């Protein structure tokens, strides 16, 4: 048998049909659904008199629209948001799919809930109408975002029409320096490859620095594969993966666990597998980074200066000029001099318990020096754990708002938004124009770096506070 990559192996195990021209039907093991990209798909099913083929493999949770203030138990005030969440309530019930409603303690961001509940397992195919579905790749699953028409297609057929992508290896060698995190890895990779560097590829992240990451860290790395253009990013499962999965509510048990483990241990790229593209970064060379522009590729070490647009080539010259204008920055300005109004810690990128621990480490006994700061846990269970560990008290004493779970200010569909010109240190994944609110200015960074910025009121090298 010819050598295969991990992606090749998962692809082959899920191929339900392949036409002569390579157009394939890929079987989907888990379909995650949220309220924003699904109502039109369910409506499509009803109009065509179709059903959900595999409701037991379909899991829904509202996250994008939900308010994160404690008063949400009384209902959602915004009528459009409420209608969308109620539509999901109804669709989940009508079609008999697994559901975590807004006031269930297990509710949270779909990409945090899936792994937490054991829905996401190694070797699976996982899709969701959300581009950050790549998160689940941390388990050695083939996971990617789809549009609403494809959501409808998966609901109706449990398959996707696909063509196989190319294989890209991203290796991070060696050890990370203190203060450098999974977020710095994933942003640095995008800085090196560009936001379109992964287009058409499935990325496998490997190397010692990736192996050393916790499952939470690996999810952060895979989460942002899409910001590098790759639909999916994955990491071969290992003992850490198995330990994370074991005992979760929907993980296999008993004899099935043993059978699953036997297969999962075959899920790695063969030594002489073919790679269409290889990118290697040295772990030691990665610094704590922040973004300066309006694309995730606009990333630099915190001790760098804002670049001169004329230092770029092609369309990037105008793009960088436009970005600096939007961000209110000037070439040569030290990034560590940039003052911050707001801090947002949360999102599917960095809303897990390890992220909250990293922020608490910096915030312990300190006060914020920004206008407002909020921590939005990725799920109700993350929130409960943070309270049990005493992290919530640290945040509240520092002056942070301690919120309920949801996507919140990552995409600002709920009331958590930036005002025009408001500058935010954010642990989310996109610094696009208007992403966090019209005219809002986003700098992406790790939870520790965001916590450091909250304490000093400016972009700050977290290493100075360790």
């Amino acid at each position: 048998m010819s050598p295969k990559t991990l992606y090749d192996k998962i692809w082959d195990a899920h191929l339900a049909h392949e036409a002569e021209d390579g157009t394939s039907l890929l079987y989907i093991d888990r379909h995650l659904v949220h309220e924003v990209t699904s109502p039109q798909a369910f409506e499509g099913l009803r109009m065509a008199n179709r059903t959900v083929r595999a409701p037991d493999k379909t899991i829904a949770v509202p996250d994008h629209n939900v308010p994160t203030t404690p008063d949400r138990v009384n209902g959602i005030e915004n009528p459009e948001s409420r209608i969308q969440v109620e539509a999901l309530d109804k669709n989940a019930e009508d079609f008999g799919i697994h559901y975590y409603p807004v006031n269930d303690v297990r509710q949270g961001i779909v990409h945090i809930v899936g792994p937490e509940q054991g829905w996401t397992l190694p070797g699976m195919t996982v899709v969701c109408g959300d581009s950050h579905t790549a998160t689940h790749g941390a388990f050695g699953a083939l996971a990617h975002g789809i549009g609403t028409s494809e959501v409808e297609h998966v609901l109706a057929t449990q398959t996707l029409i696909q063509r196989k992508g190319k294989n890209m290896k991203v290796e991070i060698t060696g050890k990370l320096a203190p203060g450098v995190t999974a977020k710095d890895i994933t942003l640095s990779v995008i800085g090196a490859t560009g936001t379109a560097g992964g287009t058409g590829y499935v990325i496998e992240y490997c190397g010692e620095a990736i192996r050393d990451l916790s499952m939470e860290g690996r999810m952060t790395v895979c989460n942002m594969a899409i910001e590098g253009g790759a639909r999916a990013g994955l990491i071969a499962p290992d003992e850490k993966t198995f330990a994370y999965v074991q005992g979760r509510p929907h993980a296999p048990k008993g004899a099935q666990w043993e059978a699953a483990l036997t297969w999962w241990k075959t899920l790695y790229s063969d030594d002489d597998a073919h790679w269409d593209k290889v990118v290697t970064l040295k772990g030691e060379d990665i610094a704590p980074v922040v973004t300066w522009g309006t694309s995730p590729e606009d990333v630099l070490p915190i001790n760098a200066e804002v670049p001169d647009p004329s230092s770029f080539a092609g369309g990037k010259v105008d793009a960088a000029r436009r970005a600096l204008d939007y961000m209110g920055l000037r070439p040569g300005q030290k990034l560590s001099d940039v003052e911050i109004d707001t801090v947002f810690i949360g999102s599917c990128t960095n809303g897990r318990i390890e992220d909250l621990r990293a922020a608490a480490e910096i915030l312990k006994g300190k006060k914020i020096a920004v206008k407002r700061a909020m921590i939005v846990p990725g799920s109700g269970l993350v929130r409960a754990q943070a309270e049990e560990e005493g992290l919530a008290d640290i945040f509240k004493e520092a002056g942070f708002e301690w919120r309920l779970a949801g996507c919140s200010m990552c995409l600002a569909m709920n009331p958590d938004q930036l005002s025009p010109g408001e500058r935010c240190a954010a642990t989310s994944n996109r610094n696009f124009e208007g992403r966090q609110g019209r005219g809002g200015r986003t700098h992406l960074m790790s939870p520790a770096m965001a916590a450091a910025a909250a304490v000093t009121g400016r972009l700050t090298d977290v290493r100075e506070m360790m």
Partner: protein
Amino acid sequence: MEKFEKLSGIAAPLPLINVDTDMIIPKQFLKTIKRSGLGVNLFDEMRYDDDGNEIPDFVLNKPQYRDAQILVAGDNFGCGSSREHAPWAIKDFGIRCVIAPSYADIFYNNCFKNGILPIALPQDQVDVLMKEAEKGANARIEVDLEAQTVSTSDGEVFPFEVDAFKKHCLLEGLDDIGLTLAKADAIDSFEARAAQARPWV
């Protein structure tokens, strides 16, 4: 789905790289539970000021581009969020074809599900078409999906590549769920095999 065969129309120039789907349709318009009516909010934050008035400099607000059916743009068009609201807004505005050097994968796929043809051409050819588009109503661009060509009013012809299956669906206006359901036997037998091999799923 609406068929796409041939199109001859005005092309609007948008010479920006990395046009993301947040730019194409900002999040406040994602609260709809319908697919229609998003055209008025296409590129909303570039197109309207804080008070909702049109920004005259924005290309789609200029008189000569109000009826544009083609959009010519820079590299990595449609990056970011998977929101299908982006192609819905483009289509609802009246644009049926986008021409750019490259696209983000999810957006590219979403276009084909909505009767929109995204064409990828080399940068130098996009540059020619961008210049053509800047002539406004004086230069119509012709797109022929069957022949896989884009032609300028000066008679320059650029061939483009498109996946044969996607082309077929677009030319015929096919519902791909219907096509897949016709292969239900293959899915049934896959499920039976998978239940043996990986019963824990």
